[in-house]
Structure formats: C-alpha cells, structure tokens
C-alpha cells in the first residue's frame, strides 16, 4: 500500500503506542460505495412509491393572498397537494433540538411558506403524483396570488432605519444577556463583547491597521440534492428515509413540525451524499409526510439542483470592519471588530460563532466586538463547515498579514508572538485548555514549503491561521459480541466521511482486536440510543467515546465470564492487549468469545455519553499562487495544510478532511458566490455558474497532522473536520498581496475583481 497514496507527515505525540489507531484500514462500507450498491436517500425503492415536487416562490418578498390548488388536484395522475395549511399551528414555540434552539414556527414556515414568502425559491406548495413529471405539470396548475413587497438583500441596507421589515414584530436579541431591543428591526441578534480599554490601547499602539472586508453568500455544495421519503401508515406510524446529518434531529424536527409523538416517528438514515452543515435542518421530511398521509402511499421528494441553491440554507454574506493595534515588538494590544452577517429570511444565523472566532487565534488584552445577524430576502442561512469562522478569519488574517508587513516581521513569527495557548483568556471569557496553535505554527515555519524559495513573476506566498471550537454532544452505541470473536456495532452517527471506521477502530483498540473484526452499522432511530448530529467535528470524538465505553463494558462483562471459567473473582481478572488473564490462566478475546454461549450467553453492551471535554482545533495553511495579471485569474500552485488533530484515528480520513476543507475554502476565496439581481433572484443556481473547484483548478493538497492529544478523551481525539475551511481565503488573499502588491478586501477574488484591482493600482498590462 505504499505506492502513490502519499500519506501526510504526522508529528506524533511521543507517548503514542497504539496498535489500531493511526493505521489505515479500508472503510467498512467501502465496497458498497465503489460498486454502486450503497443506498442513498434517492435510491430508496418501496412498494407503491410515488414522487413529489415542490412549488417555489418566484418572488423574493411578497404576501401570499391566496393559493388555489383545485386544478392541480384534478390533474390526472396527481395523488395529493399540500400547502402550509396542512401543518398544525405552532405559535412561537422554541424547541431545543440537540444542536441548538430552533423556532418551530420559522422551521415550519421555511418548509412551506405561511402568509409571506421571504425569498425567491421559498417553498409554497407540493404535489405528489404517479411520477415526478406529472407532479411538475401539476405545479404549473397551482395558482398563487402574490402581493409583492419591497425586496432587500444587503445586510447593511437592511439595518438602516426605515428599511422594509421582513418580520414585523422582530425585536433584536441582545446577546449574550437575554435582553431584547425595544423597537422592531431586521436585526435579529446583536452580540457584544468588551474587555479592557480599547480606546486608550489604540491610542498607545505603535501601529494600527483598520480595514473593511466583504464576503458573499456561498453554498455547502454537496453533490447529493436533499431527498426524503415518508410513509405515514394508517396506524399513525410515520417512517422517514432521509439524507440527514442527524436522524434523531430529523425525527425531532419532523415530530415537532407535525405535532406527532416522537415514538410515532422513525427516521432511517440513508447514506448521505455530503452535508457540511447544510443537511441538519429538515426541508422535505414534513412535506413528504403530509403528502403521504393524504394519499396513503410512500412519497419521495428529491430537490432539483436549483431548489438546493435557492431553497436551502447557504452560509451568509458578510460585512466586517477590523481594527488591530500592536506595540513596537509586534505584540497585539488592542482589537476591535464590527461584523454584520445576513441570516437570510429568518432570524438566527451564525454571527455567534463569528464574534467568538474573530480574535480566537490571538491573545489580545483590550478588545471590543460587535456582531449583528440581519434578516434579508435571501434563503435562511445555515451552518457551513465551521460556520461563521471563515468570514472573520479572512478579515483578521489579512489584517495580521498587513501588520507583519508594516513591522517587517515574518508573518508566522508575528502569529507565534501573539498566538493563543493554554491559559489564554478568550475575548468572550473562557480560558483555553491545552491547544496546539503554537505547535502548528512552528510546524508551518519548519515545513519545506515555507522554507523553499518561490520564484517567478506575479507569484506570491501567503499564510493564515484558523480556528474552530469543535463540540461534544450526545452519542450512543450498542455492541453485540459474537461467538466467533467479531463484534457487531450499532451507532447513530450518519457516516459522511468514514466515521463507521474511525469509531470501530476505537472499539477495536479498546478490545485488542482488528478493526475488520468490528461490523459497524448506522442504525435507525428505533434501534440505537439517542445520538446528536454528525457535525461540529464531533463524531470521532463523541461517538468514538461511546464506542470506547461500550468496549469497557464488554471487557467488564467478559472478565466475569473468564472468572467463571477459572473459578476466581472477576476483580482478579486482568485484561490487556486483547488477552484476559489471572495468575497462570490466560485466554484471548476470541477464545473467550467461543465460550460465551456456555457461560451465560452472548454479550450485549451499550453506552450513552454526553462528553464535556471537547477541545478546539487550529490550522495553519501555506499557499503559493500565480496571478495572470492580464486577466486577473489566480492559479494555486502549491498548498499545504497543517492542523492540530489531537490523535488522528484514521490518518487518511483526517487528511481527507483537511484536503476537502481546504479546497472548499479555495472555492470560497476565488470563485464561489451567489449572484442576485435587483429583484433578489439568484442568477446562478446551477453547478455551471456557481463555480465550485474542479479537479483541474487545484493542486495536490499537502497535509501535516500535528498530534497534540486532547487530555479529555481516552485516545486524545480533538475533532478535525471543520477547521480546514477556515484559513484558505486569508492565506490566498495574503498570497495575492505578496504576488501583486494588492490587498483584496472582497471575496470572491474572482478574475474580474482581481483584474480591476490591478488596473486601479496601475500594475496591469492592458
């Protein structure tokens, strides 16, 4: 397996002495996925299955005066038509759905609009028919009368006095603090943090840099469109086959929107074709369920690609003003950030992590942060890989780069001087535990990439750091030990990138057996304990921990069996390296499994965990690029991503997360953006014109994994998946500056923008 796979450099913890962890077994679901047999949500086939389609609003902001579905209902082949009138009235109920509170009325009104449409593409009605073509024909027969309202798509405009209001009674939440503003506006949240005396500190600073930045709306861009199938049986039992990052969350959302008991809803998680945060909310599940109830058949809905772009939650556009002061040595003394993110159609976006991430890589004594979530007539924004963090990292890392230039300091040295470390108090209050930013910066500085000269005209190098929290949340696992020494593992975490295997490896390490001897299944919501979403870089950490706890339970039960065999006390049985022993007796895990049936039966073990000890991930990226100054096009020449991963359980999947996140970040930096016209219509809802990177747009992405173990996890796991998207826009902007002398303060750095900046600076050739 040497060949050309080119594994990452891993800077290991010297204590590390694992047998299974750190190896690279083939994933358990692999053969199904390379032979086309794996069942994704749109692959579900059921007896009597019918298909549905969604009618979406042609207006970005309008009152719905009436909806007439009679012609659609009469169309041959149509089985059911639904609108929000079929949903129960939810008032203003807020439910805590595991990953955070959700306003159920908003959730339901986003699935099917109630009295207003708030963005172009907002779902208005749905039709189930014998096939999707008939369903789409029927959509044309639904008559919706709209009263158009003024459209606003820019957050700064929407914040102005007198701006048209999306939600008439919306009072700004003052966060953190629980208070509310007194007059309605489009601002859903105002976050504010302050410490020290920034005014005096800026006054005293040696150099102060202040810059404004903007970024545009970008989409997670998963290749699989959302899809769901629902069957609402005559006995009231609702079964949902879903493409979701969290089957339990999908179950709760569905049960709450429809006001049916949780026990009546079963969600069967299908294989999922990417999520990146975008497949946490439900869009289709309640709609398919209502249609199924109406027609008595299982109903499948798959979104169209333009439906995905226009009707699901991208991540927000932003405006950011950053001010940073340093003393003569380069020590950062004062920081100020003013941030406005658009949340899209409904309140509750990702400004929270934005304000907490903006200064998270640095130790800054005096700081002042204001952040606003602002409602506009665009799709309701949702999480996208390290939600809210990439925006601010682009801004702050650009400013840090400029300070390094002015100080005539190496940009990594400046970061090292100011880097957050264990004990650093964050601006939002908490103090960092053991983190690995320093180690990651040092590894970057010592990397061949950073040390090798970059030659040639219009070429530049940039570096940037990035941060993500990572989370813990709840996970469960159940294991059945088989008589042949293999173990069947049931867990509830949707596997988006090989987590069946990274979880199984932790159980295998605990039991001292091979990863291949574990047979993992992602179970449905009736078959395994409550498990939160696949997100927040938590699965290998938390569900892995559940597997470790299961392993401990198995060992403890098996010690009892060994004690029976040897007629001793269970407490006297030892277990290590897959062998049970007591005095002169010893028996391997596998041998003891063969004796389980005669010592009390086969063993089942289970665990539910709610770990609190998750810790943060830091990444540092180095980028070389060349700018075609005649066209403004940027070509990435070399790219290295370094990250503190805690323990890399399956290094290939850690590298994969780092590479995939980097390339998403590169896309965000260079070409991806939602383009809107003045009516709030998205102009580019296709994969042709929403330009995600192709294989030809990027080089190989080198990776370095720095293993600074998390002391709160038995194997030191930290969480990896989100941090890698954070540094790229900053690293690329800094490299463009290095190549051309121009600081790009607006994303994306698309060819026309870069070219126009070059012309303004007089460096271009025409």
């Amino acid at each position, binding site marked *: 397996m040497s060949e050309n796979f080119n594994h990452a450099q891993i800077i290991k913890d010297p204590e590390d002495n694992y047998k299974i962890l750190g190896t690279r077994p083939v994933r358990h679901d692999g053969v199904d996925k390379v032979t086309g047999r794996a069942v994704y949500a749109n692959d579900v086939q059921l007896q009597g299955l019918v298909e549905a389609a969604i009618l979406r609003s042609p207006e970005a902001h309008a009152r719905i005066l009436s909806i007439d579905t009679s012609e659609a209902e009469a169309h041959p082949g149509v089985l059911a038509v639904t609108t929000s009138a079929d949903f129960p009235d939810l008032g203003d109920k807020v439910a805590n759905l595991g990953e955070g509170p959700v306003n159920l009325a908003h959730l339901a009104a986003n699935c099917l609009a109630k009295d207003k449409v708030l963005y172009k593409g907002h779902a208005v009605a749905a039709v189930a028919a014998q096939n999707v*073509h008939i369903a789409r*024909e029927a959509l044309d027969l639904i008559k919706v009368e709209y009263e158009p309202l003024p459209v606003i798509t820019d957050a700064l405009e929407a914040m102005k006095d007198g701006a048209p209001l999306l939600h008439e009674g919306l009072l700004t939440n003052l966060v953190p603090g629980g208070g509310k503003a007194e007059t309605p506006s489009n601002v859903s949240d105002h976050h504010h943090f302050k410490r020290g005396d920034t005014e005096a500190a800026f006054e005293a600073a040696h150099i102060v840099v202040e810059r404004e930045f903007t970024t545009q709306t970008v989409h997670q861009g998963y290749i699989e469109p959302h899809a769901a199938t629902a069957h609402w049986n005559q006995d009231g039992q609702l079964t949902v086959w879903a493409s979701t990052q969290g089957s339990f969350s999908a179950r709760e959302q569905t049960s709450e929107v429809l006001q049916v008991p949780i026990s009546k809803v079963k969600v069967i998680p299908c294989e999922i074709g990417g999520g990146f945060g975008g497949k946490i909310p439900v869009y289709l599940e309640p709609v398919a369920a209502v249609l199924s109830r109406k027609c008595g058949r299982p109903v499948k809905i798959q979104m169209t690609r333009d439906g995905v772009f226009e009707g699901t939650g991208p991540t927000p556009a932003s405006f950011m003003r950053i001010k940073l002061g340093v003393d003569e040595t380069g020590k950062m003394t004062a920081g100020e950030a003013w941030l406005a993110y658009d949340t899209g159609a409904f309140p509750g976006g990702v400004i929270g992590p934005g304000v907490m991430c903006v200064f998270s890589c640095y130790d800054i004594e005096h700081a002042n942060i204001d952040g606003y979530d602002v409602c506009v007539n665009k799709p309701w924004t949702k999480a996208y890989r390290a939600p809210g963090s990439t925006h601010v990292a682009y801004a702050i890392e650009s400013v840090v780069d400029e300070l390094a230039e002015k100080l005539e300091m190496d940009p990594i040295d400046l970061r090292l001087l100011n880097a957050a470390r264990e004990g650093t108090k964050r601006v939002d209050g908490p103090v960092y535990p053991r983190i690995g930013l320093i180690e990651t910066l040092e590894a970057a500085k010592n990397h061949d990439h950073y040390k090798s000269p970059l030659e040639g005209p219009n070429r530049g190098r940039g570096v940037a750091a990035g941060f993500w929290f990572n989370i813990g949340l709840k996970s469960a696992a159940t294991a059945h030990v088989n008589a042949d020494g293999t173990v069947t593992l049931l867990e509830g975490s949707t596997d988006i990138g090989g987590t069946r295997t990274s979880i199984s490896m932790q159980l295998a390490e605990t039991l001292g057996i091979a990863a291949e001897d574990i047979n993992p299944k992602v179970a449905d919501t009736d078959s395994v304990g409550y498990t939160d979403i696949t997100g927040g870089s938590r699965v290998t950490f938390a569900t892995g921990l559940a597997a470790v706890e299961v392993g401990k339970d198995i060992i403890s039960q098996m010690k009892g069996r060994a004690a029976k065999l040897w007629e001793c006390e269970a407490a006297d049985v030892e277990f290590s390296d897959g062998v049970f022993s007591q005095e002169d007796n010893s028996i391997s895990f596998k041998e003891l499994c063969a004796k389980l049936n005669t010592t009390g039966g086969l063993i089942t073990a289970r665990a539910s965990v709610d770990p609190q000890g998750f810790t943060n991930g830091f990444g540092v990226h180095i980028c070389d690029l060349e700018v*075609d100054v005649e066209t403004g*096009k940027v070509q990435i020449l070399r790219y290295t991503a370094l990250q503190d991963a805690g323990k890399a359980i399956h290094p290939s999947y850690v590298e994969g997360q780092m590479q995939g996140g980097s390339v998403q970040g590169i896309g965000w930096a*260079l070409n991806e953006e939602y*383009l809107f016209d003045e009516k709030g219509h998205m102009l580019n809802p296709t994969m042709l014109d929403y330009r995600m990177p192709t294989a*030809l*747009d990027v080089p190989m992405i080198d990776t370095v994994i720095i293993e600074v173990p998390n002391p709160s996890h038995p194997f030191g796991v930290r969480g990896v998946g989100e941090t890698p998207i954070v540094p790229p826009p900053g690293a690329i902007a800094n490299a463009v500056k290095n190549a051309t002398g121009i600081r790009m303060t607006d994303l994306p750095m*698309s060819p026309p923008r870069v070219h126009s900046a070059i012309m303004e600076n007089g460096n271009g050739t025409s």
Partner: protein
Amino acid sequence: MRDFEYKAPATIDEAVTLLAERGSEARVLAGGTDIIVQLREGLKEAGLVVDVKKIPELMSLTWRDDGGLDIGGAVPCHVLYNDTKVVNAYPAITDSAKIIGGWQIQGRASLGGNLCNSSPAADSIPALIVESAACRIAGPEGERHVPVQEFCTAPGANVLTEGEMLVSLALPPVGESSGSRYMRFIPRNEMDIAVTGAGAWLRLGEGGETVEEARLALSAVAPTPVVADEAQAWLQGKPATEESFAEAGDIARKAAAPISDMRGPADYRTHLVGVLVKRALNGALGRARGGDRNPVTPSGINLC
C-alpha cells in the same frame, strides 16, 4: 417538461418532412446537451423531437476530393479531437471541441448542435468562422449553403427557417504555412461558459516571418459571435511578432460590444478580447510554423 413525440428518421428527406409538417413545435435532437436542458427547464417547448443521429450524413466525417472536410452536423466532439487528421487540419476546431463541457458532454455534443443553439458564447463558432466553415442546410425548398459567420442572427436565433436543418459543416482544404487556435477565458479551468473567446487563423508569407492572411473571430462579446474585421485586415503583411499580435488585439476590441452579465462586466470582456486575440494569434503562429496541433491541455497559468 411536457411529454413529446420522438422520431428518429433515417434520411434527411424524412427529417425535413417531419420538421416542415410540425413547424415550430418540432425540435432537432443531436447531442442533446443543450436541448434536453432547455426543455427540462421550460426554456423551450417541443411537441416533437426529431433525433437526427440515425441519419448517416449527420454522423459522418467525409474528406472531399478537394482535400476539404465535411463534418456531419451531429458528429460528437470526441470524434473530432480523437481524429489526428482533423486535429492537424483544423486545430482551432478541435481546441474548441476539447473544452465544450467535460468529457461526458463531449461524448454527445456536436459542433452542429453548438452552432444551431446559437449562443453568443459558443466555443466552436469562432473556431468554425476562422477555419472558413460553411453550413450545408437542407429544407423543404432544397439545399442551401451559408457561411458560418452569417449563420447566427441573435442570441439563440439563426438563419434556419421552419423545416430546415443543418446537415453538415464544410471546411475548405488546408493551405501551407497556416495554423489556427481557439482560446477562451473562464474563471475555472474547465466546465465553464466563455467570458470571452477568440479564434485566430493565419497564413504566413514566405520565410514564415510575416502574416499573409489572418482571420479573427470572437465569442461572448456581441449578440452573435463576430468577426474582428478591422484587426484581421490590419494584420495582413505585418510581421508575425508579439507586438503585432498585441496591436491586433487592441484593434479587435473595436469589434466587441459586450453586455455585462453574471459571467463578466462589459469592460472586462472588452479588455479580454485584446488578451485572447494576442494569445490565440501566438498559438496559431506556433502551429503555422509546425508546432504541435493537439488541443492544448491547460497547463500552468495560461489556462485560457
């Protein structure tokens, strides 16, 4: 999309009869990479789809006795760039065939389809223009021939009347000391629609140091692909140098009257005309002097 009738006639006469009978509700299906999308998105409607791929003339490459080539209207792109003789004779055309969509699109899409779709941003049309291609059109009134540069009349519109169909594209024999190149600018390196495209063809005078004749055509800078008349005339007799080509590029900008849209602002597109004309002329020059004629796999930084 509404259901429609599907017919796959085996002869041109049958096809023309069907098209004439059904008038504006009939649509021709060649590679399908545009028309199927347009029908699906409701941009066009069809009562009848006429698949022309069973008609031998539409699917064949025929080298004529005069040394020229007839390309059947539905011959897919991959057939062209995998044919060494075609690549060597008309490299601007195979440049464009190699970048229309990805490989999967090139497995189906045809130059004839690209032409009849008549997008201002079509990649193959400037290439066909500079290679002096002519359209062989069959219709109820018989056959007629129209130069490619006169074929498109507006975005999505062309000279075909009801009942007419494109049969093939006729290319003249290749002369000595000539070479051609098509280039486009796109933000990504593949899978994109031209922000601006430029085809260049030139023939060198004796000694290979001067331009004896040049042809330049542009895409995505006007309602139809256009010929850069003034620039190509100016090049005649000029030394075949970077400086001449840069100046030709500047002059070619006058032929551009682009709009601003989501794929690029107008002034940027006009600017790109100069850059692309210069680069395409350089590419054509290299080929005229015997350089490699294979479609250039994008490499390094000059990817357009």
